[in-house]
């Protein structure tokens, strides 16, 4: 079966690029015939690292069959198409109630920006991202620069031979403990230059001088990392965008982090809500059904909003401050779903019991708890909800600047 499908996706590439409904139909058929789908659907792991290893295998499988290559340009390991193909890819995984491989999240955030600002690096490394053999992490936040990103102090100094030497400290790096490469925003200007003196670099995680310290969330899972740079040498060809142009690169990336990633992650959220429905349908829980409907509507509204952004991105539009609305809506929807799961399945979440009996799967329980903890980060990472509200107040509502 896999051989036949493999041939089909390659052969039908042009049809899929021009006809997204056809891509949807055939991908749906592939997933419904997939003999490993049940294992994939019910795969739960006790650690973040094991989860990523499993997801990398899923990426590899979908990549060799060709399905996750639609929506990415051929020069970077894709088969052509645009953001709408990627949206459909996530929708169909959701339709099949299959978990989206976690590498897709960081790929959605960083991939498009690499294609625009470092096409050579994108051609070199994105194929490996798409086939699951490597993934990357963002090095933006620092211990002293969270919401106030433009105050960051990690320095990159011209070494006089065309390269740079990076010194400093990044933190809250998602997928950082296992990432192969880091997208690092560093200061090349004066300490006072704020957002004007920043430059983006791609740094190999195994470069001499890079130290990665995994950070366990309250769930115990090592989802994040702190990264130390100690005289890390970066060649000139690892620049992403222009020297001093790091803020523009970051803003471009933010459109994807707030729009495209938002659309993708809402498909994961809908699948979680779908699993909750199955549980509620079999176990009564009638009292929570209206709240379930309200949360579903909020998720749909966030999805409709992010879909308008995906359409703009697919037509090469810029999104700008409007993406703060997307970010606020999808982050709050993600939290609302996880709160509903916590409240409806409280007995299981708190004591690991169902109807006063100890439940069998520890990994499933641990995963559910980890999802709840990680969902708390939705309104913190990528710019806190407070930062987004400030942007909306300034740039969309046109209110007077905030008094500080």
């Amino acid at each position, binding site marked *: 079966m896999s051989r036949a499908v493999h041939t089909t996706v390659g052969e039908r590439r042009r049809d899929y690029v021009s006809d997204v409904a056809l891509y949807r139909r055939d991908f749906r058929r592939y997933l419904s015939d997939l003999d490993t789908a049940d294992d994939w659907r019910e795969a739960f792991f006790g650690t973040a690292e094991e989860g990523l290893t499993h997801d990398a295998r899923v990426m590899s499988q979908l990549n060799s069959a060709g399905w996750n290559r639609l929506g990415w340009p051929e020069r970077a390991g894709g088969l052509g198409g645009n953001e709408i193909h990627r949206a459909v890819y996530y929708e169909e995984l959701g339709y099949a109630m299959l978990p989206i491989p976690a590498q897709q999240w960081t790929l959605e955030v960083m991939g498009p920006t690499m294609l625009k600002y470092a096409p050579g690096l994108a051609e070199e490394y994105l194929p490996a991202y798409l086939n699951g053999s490597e993934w990357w992490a963002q090095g933006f936040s620092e211990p002293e620069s969270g919401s106030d990103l433009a105050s960051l102090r990690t320095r990159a100094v011209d070494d006089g031979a065309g390269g740079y030497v990076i010194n400093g400290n990044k933190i809250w790096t998602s997928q950082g403990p296992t990432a192969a490469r880091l997208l690092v925003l560093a200061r090349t200007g004066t300490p006072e230059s704020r957002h004007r003196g920043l430059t983006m670099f791609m740094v190999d995680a195994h470069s001499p001088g890079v130290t990665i310290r995994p950070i366990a969330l309250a769930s115990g899972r090592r989802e994040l990392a702190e990264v130390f740079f100690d005289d890390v040498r970066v060649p000139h060809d690892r620049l992403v965008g222009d020297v001093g142009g790091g803020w523009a690169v970051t803003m471009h990336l933010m459109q994807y982090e707030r729009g495209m990633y938002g659309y993708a992650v809402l498909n994961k959220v*809908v699948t979680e809500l779908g699993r909750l429905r199955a549980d509620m349908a079999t176990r009564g829980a009638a009292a929570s*059904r209206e709240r379930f409907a309200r949360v579903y509507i909020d998720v749909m509204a966030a999805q409709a909003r992010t879909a308008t952004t995906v359409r703009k991105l697919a037509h090469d539009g810029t999104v700008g401050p409007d993406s703060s609305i997307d970010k606020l809506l999808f982050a709050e929807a993600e939290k609302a779903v996880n709160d509903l799961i916590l409240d409806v399945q409280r007995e299981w979440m708190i004591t690991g019991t169902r109807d006063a009996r100890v439940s069998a799967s520890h990994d499933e329980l641990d995963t559910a708890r980890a999802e709840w903890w990680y969902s708390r980060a939705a309104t913190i990472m990528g710019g806190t909800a407070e930062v987004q509200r400030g942007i*909306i107040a300034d740039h969309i509502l046109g209110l007077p600047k905030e008094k500080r």
Partner: protein
Amino acid sequence: MGNSREEQKAADGVDESWPMIEEAVLRLFDDLAEKPDHVAIGPRLTELGWSDIEAEYPVEACELLFRAQGRSLAHTDCLDRVMLAELATLLDEPADGMVLPNLADGCTPSSGQGQVNGILQGAPRGRLLVPVSTAMGTVSVTVVDADTLTYERLDTFDSSMYWACVAGPLDGDLIDASTEWNRAISAAQRALATELVALSDRALRIAVEQISVRVQFGTPIGSLQSPRHALADAAATLEGARALLGETWRHGGPMSAQIAKAAAGRAHRAVSDAALQVCGAIGLTAEHDLHRYVARGFMIDALCGSYQQLEAVLAERLFDIHSPGRALPAIISWG
């Protein structure tokens, strides 16, 4: 360049004549809003060449009427027209108005068992179309003479509205209309949701203007974090509802229309609550405009299923259609 009109229309759904149409309609509704009366808008639209406009822009034209109505607070029979358009093929001659379900009944006709019951917007007039609940949840329609009904003007939350409770004998022929009624309800829900979003836009704008000029502690209160964030949250909720509504207008079926109206009703509440808080005492007064957009929205939300009713209906539906392994229904269409 010869194709540019078609190309632009394909890209935006509209072409360069659209802004002029939009301006004319907004002006018309602003004129109508000067008067307190409920207006039959047909003749005024005919003057604008409405049938051609509707033929060229079937979605945008309808959307525009309700956007204009929300913005202007005019009282018209636009809703009756939208619903009658879905039911017209069943009738031999056109009807002049529509008997809407009582609020407690949501989207289910209140007439049945020989009795007309429901709500009429505006004064009694001509021939009224009456939806009737028949056996097993089906719906039929009939037409009654307005003269045969009794009217009692309702004591409405927004006292500027003319809603009447109508009652009388139901003795005409019943025409089976379940499919058409569902379409009429979806059309009404899209229209009402559009009006709610327009009302919310106005309420939000009023609040933004108020806190931009109101000075306390030596600074406009719009520069203080708490009111800024309250309005930003409300604006985000409103944009979510607007995006859902856009999906519904373009591709939506019945569930999509219900969801869009529920979201618009919730968003109107969220915007109203935030606006009423940040405007302070002046926003609660009769001399300030805010209450007009708040109260009108409460009325509009109540028609054809309030957000609470629609959420309850949706909850039931989502669990009725559940089967093992089945995903929740999706809303987005990429067209």
